[in-house]
């Protein structure tokens, strides 16, 4: 516990962490500011026009349903067939609608937080390894796994706490913007459940990024090792290998890409197109899509964590320290 407190002071005192936090705040600030600038409270005229549009749409949908039911088939089919209920927000333009836009905004926030977590965790251990601070600590506590584990635990806890607070403030800020200069939209229980789920998954992704950054920097004994790993992965695999897969006409290149799993993790499920799935069958019944779900993503993340973080701990136990 004392070790963790000491580590936390060390983390909090890092200039880099301060700088990154400021950048994070700035990025969120800019997003909020552009949202405010691009939104206005709908005028009475706009409301009236939108309400009218909704009524038209409702009438049109009702017509469709009746047509559908007249041509028999089951009512459930007709429910699925007609469009969803029209909402007033769909007909307000230049107005920030919280219920519609917050999910994308949360994704954006999670991307920033994940980048932040990755860099902070990598630099936290990388700087200590290169500066000899780790050596110093090990003279005091000659228990390598404990020392490294405490460091990882501290940075994960700190990143999680910061991300949780940031999420609440961020979502709160956009809700306030909607209240003041936009419309909150349809905020039922399901909406909030989905939002909480998205944020929770996002925090998981943030922790994953932190752990990978930490592990890669430990393995490579340097902060730059983590950056190198990401850059190399992005260029060699996400871009290079994708091109190669294209050339060799591999059917499902997306299932080898980490980005697919990140997407699936956040969205719960993503569909990809398998270009060879239906080449030798007779069309319509053949399913040329395949799904990657958050369960798959979780498994992939677990394997990567085991390899990189597990590898970091395994090598750190026996390594010669300068």
């Amino acid at each position, binding site marked *: 516990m*004392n*070790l963790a*407190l*000491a580590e936390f*002071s*060390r983390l909090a*005192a*890092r*200039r880099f962490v301060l700088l990154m936090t400021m950048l994070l705040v700035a990025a969120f600030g800019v997003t909020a500011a552009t949202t405010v600038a691009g939104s206005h409270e709908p005028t009475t005229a706009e409301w009236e026009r939108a309400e009218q549009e909704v009524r038209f749409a409702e009438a049109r949908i009702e017509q469709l349903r009746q047509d559908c039911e007249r041509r028999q088939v089951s009512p459930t089919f007709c429910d699925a067939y007609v469009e969803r209920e029209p909402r007033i927000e769909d007909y307000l333009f230049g107005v920030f609608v919280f219920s519609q836009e917050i999910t994308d905004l949360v994704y954006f926030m999670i991307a920033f937080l994940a980048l932040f977590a990755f860099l902070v965790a990598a630099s936290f251990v990388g700087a200590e390894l290169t*500066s*000899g*601070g780790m*050596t*110093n*600590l*090990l*003279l*005091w*506590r*000659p*228990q390598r796994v404990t020392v490294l584990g405490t460091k990882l635990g501290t940075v994960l806890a700190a990143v999680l706490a910061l991300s949780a607070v940031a999420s609440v403030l961020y979502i709160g800020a956009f809700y306030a913007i909607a209240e003041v200069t936009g419309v909150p939209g349809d905020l039922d229980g399901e909406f909030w459940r989905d939002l909480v789920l998205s944020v929770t998954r996002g925090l998981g992704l943030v922790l994953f990024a932190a752990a990978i950054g930490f592990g890669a920097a430990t393995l490579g004994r340097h902060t730059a090792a983590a950056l190198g790993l990401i850059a190399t992965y992005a260029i060699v695999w996400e871009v290079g290998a994708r091109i190669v897969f294209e050339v060799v006409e591999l059917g499902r290149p997306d299932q080898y890409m980490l980005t697919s799993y990140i997407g699936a993790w956040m969205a719960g499920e993503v569909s990809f197109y398998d270009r060879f799935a239906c080449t030798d069958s007779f069309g319509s019944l053949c399913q040329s899509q395949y799904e990657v779900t958050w369960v798959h993503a979780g498994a992939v993340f677990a394997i990567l964590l085991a390899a990189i973080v597990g590898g970091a701990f395994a090598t750190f136990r*026996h390594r*010669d*320290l300068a």
Partner: protein
Amino acid sequence: MVWPMTAVIQIEGLRKTFRTFRGGARVALNGFDMTVEAGQVHGFLGPNGSGKTTTLRTLLGLVRADDGHMSILGQRAPEALPAVAPRVGAIVESPQFFGNFTGRRTLQLLARAGGVPAERVDAVLAQVGLRDRAGERVKAYSLGMKQRLAVASALLKQPELLILDEPANGLDPAGIREMRDLMRELSAAGITVLVSSHILAEIQLICDHVTIISRGQRVATGPVAAVLSGFDKGEYRVRVGDLDRAAGVLTTAGLPVTRNDDHLVVADVADSAWISEQLGQRGMWVTELTPITPDLESVFLQLTAAAPGPSVPRQVDDVVQPGPIDLGVQP
């Protein structure tokens, strides 16, 4: 190694080869032995790259040995290090501290991580002369101040054994003297000190025992006086008016004589009065007749053969490959 150990530090047959990615290998320790008994102030000497720091790192669990046995405070190292660490204070080769913390904060965090009462922090800061600068950031410290902070960190635990790798590095003359006094104080308080240094005069002043290492092997060990006397060749420096004639006389008498610019060095002298008598009888009046007692520096240079040549700069590894030198002083 016989258990249980009584020595505070016991190292036997320690071997370490550093390997590089490209397949290169550098033998840092080649069967090194060392014994430090309780209460000693033990000097650890050796040329650059001879393996001092590697020895200390290995002993403290930062580097894995390829072979050999080590014990520290009677317990196996590195296995028992977590148990003995609270009783060992160590600095290894100019430790780095986090620059954004003040000196005091640095020590407070270490004290916390090691379960040392917070009151010790100000006590050790005063002890190393940093009391008035303790509130400044470490990055604003001078080299010597950082070194003092390092020593303070080693003293924080009130250790029974203090291991200091080049503690005088970067210290000013007053600092070196303070370090000397500090070590004497600690030694008087019953603390065992192992100190590596290149300042041989300093070691000779502080230490009662030494171990000399060259190319990863021990070349001498024992009480300082015993190591020095092993190199006492009974030499005298002789100054007279006519050096050539005097050299002739002494050579005829069967003594090995070396002619220098303004004096002679005569070896194997049993009785110095005999020299002045012999030369006086021939009308040569001796103006200086002093015994040349070996100091640690000359012994060190001889043992490690690290004396610079006439004009070629000596390279770091141009030192003696230790053979079985027996000084009769090994324990």
